[in-house]
């Protein structure tokens, strides 16, 4: 069948079973939008800014097992998309971004709305393509989806010049794709796995530390099974929340800069550390030299060899798909009668529980002023712990990750790697579209929400009943916290003056807005919001301006050098 390049693009998306494309039209993608118009399988979500298109596609991917798809035009369309692409890249989210480009003959001529999209995005994509011939579109898109979701996932960009989308050729979608230069490892090395299992069985102070890889590999079930078989303590990183049920006794909370005392102490003083789909980054282990001071054996399972021995030396590296490797570990354990020594493990647990008894997550609640931690706890109660929670970046992000207990994977969506303010609302849009019946809450702050607030309009158009929980402290809270602690309380440019009345703003967009000022109104407001099944409700919580995120490991310090509360200062 002879089709235009634009029609081929849409047919490829249909073949990949894409149900939503998030995008914004423009000159270079007019043919593609025309082809979109003539079909009804692939639905298009018109955002108000390209950055939000990519974030929404990213949120869609995070909340499902599918590849998120965004469509933008050339020039500013592509540059606006860059923040979204980099955000997805840092968290290894499978995405395909299709960008229009000026006609091939105009490339390099400084044409209207021309930028070197492939060049600009090269450092923040898993791979990218410029399609120069209409006959290459189908194989390129096939490759793009294949690359995005296999190996260590990531965003792949396909740049299509306008004339290429106009030209015609015979269309046939390739059934398979093979690339001699790209063959990700799937199965882990048997011998290495055996070595790892042996180490785990002999461990005196074992600890399991898992990250976003577990979520991406859909390996939460296997991880839970293995952890319960071994009876070891476990911690999930910010990206890995929900990988293991947070309400379980073996779970010690999150590690790292704002992690729990018990998780950090157990990480630091473990003698065998099993790291699964995590990358020992600076926000998790703090100073790597301090971390290395305590001798321990490290087993590191990851799909990406370059993540292994990057920041810390690893004793047993295992490269492979996490699900496969964990299943193999379980198989070997099942075939082996040996179990960890209950006495040694018991005395380790005694130590861990002693750390736990410090109750580092305790905070002083108030009857007068709303504490942000209290809002998150109530959100958890009101949603039965089963909402999809998105967040922006800052203090509210940490409070949400600390006080909402995630028992299932793909319930917590945030920008962990790049730390992009403004992702919360578009993530919620993608998640709500992907999960129409689910309760979706966007925990945000008055600064972050304004970075993509225009999307309230998109939410109205697509009737997305998101509940926005704005923890409004009139400050760039995390900046203010660091200025208080490390910059002599000089609050340089961290106070936000002239804020809008968010409740009225939400109403102006056609939504419901509530302003909550008293602790006694928090639960009622949340219940009212979630009872409104069909409305987006903007809850503007006026919270304590002076509240800080604790516990805290200062940048550059070691994991055991924690500030547990304001009294430690």
């Amino acid at each position, binding site marked *: 069948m002879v089709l235009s390049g634009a029609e081929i693009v849409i047919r490829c998306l249909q073949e990949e079973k894409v149900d939503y494309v998030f995008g914004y039209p423009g000159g270079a993608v007019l043919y593609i939008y025309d082809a979109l118009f003539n079909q009804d399988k692939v639905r298009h979500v018109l955002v108000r800014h390209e950055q939000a298109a990519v974030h929404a596609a990213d949120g869609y991917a995070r909340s499902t097992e599918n590849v998120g798809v965004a469509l933008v035009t050339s020039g500013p369309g592509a540059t606006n998309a860059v923040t979204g692409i980099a955000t997805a890249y840092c968290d290894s989210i499978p995405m395909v971004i299709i960008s229009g480009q000026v006609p091939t003959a105009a490339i390099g001529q400084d044409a209207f709305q021309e930028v070197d999209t492939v060049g600009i995005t090269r450092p923040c994509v898993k791979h990218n393509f*410029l399609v120069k011939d209409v006959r290459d579109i189908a194989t390129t898109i096939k490759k793009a989806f294949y*690359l995005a979701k296999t190996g260590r996932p990531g965003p792949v960009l396909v740049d299509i010049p306008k004339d290429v989308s106009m030209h015609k050729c015979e269309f046939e979608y390739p059934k398979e794709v093979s690339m001699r230069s790209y063959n990700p490892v799937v199965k882990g090395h048997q011998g290495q796995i055996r070595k790892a299992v042996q180490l785990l069985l002999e461990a005196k102070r074992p600890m399991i530390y898992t990250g976003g890889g577990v979520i991406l590999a859909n390996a939460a079930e296997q991880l839970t099974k293995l952890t319960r078989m071994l009876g070891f303590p476990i911690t999930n990183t910010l990206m890995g929340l929900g990988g293991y049920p947070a309400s379980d006794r073996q779970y010690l909370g999150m590690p790292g800069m704002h992690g729990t005392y018990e998780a950090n102490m157990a990480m630091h003083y473990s003698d065998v550390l099993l790291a699964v789909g995590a990358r020992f980054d600076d926000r998790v282990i703090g100073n790597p030299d301090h971390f290395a001071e305590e001798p321990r054996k490290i087993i590191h399972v990851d799909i990406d*060899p370059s993540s292994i021995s990057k920041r810390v030396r690893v004793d047993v590296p295992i490269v492979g798909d996490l699900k496969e490797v964990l299943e193999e570990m379980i198989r070997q354990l099942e075939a082996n009668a040996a179990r960890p020594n209950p006495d040694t493990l018991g005395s380790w647990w005694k130590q861990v529980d002693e750390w736990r008894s410090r109750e580092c997550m305790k905070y002083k609640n108030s009857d007068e002023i709303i504490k942000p931690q209290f809002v998150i706890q109530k959100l958890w109660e009101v949603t039965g712990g089963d909402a999809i929670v998105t967040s922006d970046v800052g203090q509210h992000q940490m409070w949400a990750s600390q006080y909402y207990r995630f028992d299932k994977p793909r319930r917590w969506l945030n920008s962990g790697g790049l730390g992009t303010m403004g992702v919360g609302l578009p993530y919620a849009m993608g998640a709500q579209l992907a999960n129409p019946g689910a309760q979706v809450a966007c925990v945000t702050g008055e600064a972050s929400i304004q970075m993509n607030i225009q999307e309230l309009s998109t939410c109205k158009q697509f009737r997305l009943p998101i509940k926005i929980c704005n923890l409004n402290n009139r400050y760039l809270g995390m900046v203010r916290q660091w200025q208080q602690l490390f910059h002599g309380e000089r609050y340089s440019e961290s106070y936000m003056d002239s804020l809008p009345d968010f409740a009225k703003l939400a109403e102006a967009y056609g939504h419901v807005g509530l302003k909550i000022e008293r602790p006694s109104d928090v639960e009622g407001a949340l219940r009212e919001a979630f009872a409104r099944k069909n409305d987006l409700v903007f809850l503007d919580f006026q919270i304590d301006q002076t509240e800080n995120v604790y516990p805290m490991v200062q940048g550059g310090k070691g994991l055991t050098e924690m500030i547990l509360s304001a009294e430690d200062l």
Partner: protein
Amino acid sequence: MRHVISLLIENESGALSRVSGLFSARGYNIESLTVAPTEDASMSRMTIVTTGSDDIIEQITKQLNKLVEVVKVVDISEAAHIERELMLTKVRATGKDREEMKRMADIFRARIIDVTDTSYVIELTGNQAKLDAFISAIDPALVLETVRSGVCGVGRGDRILKV
């Protein structure tokens, strides 16, 4: 430590910038980089000379392997290997210098490949040390221009980098 990394990469536009971009983005050193298509025109071979600790070299090879278009990566300096570089040097060749230059070229087994009334172009191949030695052996005032290709390398004997 100095390392010589050889790699095979798909001969696509932009492939070189993916490699060079990786080095600059992650702060790795490039002492020299050469690239040209192989006997199979769909593939190019690169030789990169870099320096770094063992940890950094391990990361460099892993990061290179991670690039989608890179087919194979080998650190050929891990074992016996051969390195060659080509240098073209244009020198002033007048009066008594004319004979002296000819003699120096002979000593280094270089070839004079262009002759004018006042200059020679001298072609010399060898490892980096030999090329450096030639440059320091001749009078710097006579050197008009120098161009070096960067290092090409290959493993000895059975060590073969091929798909």
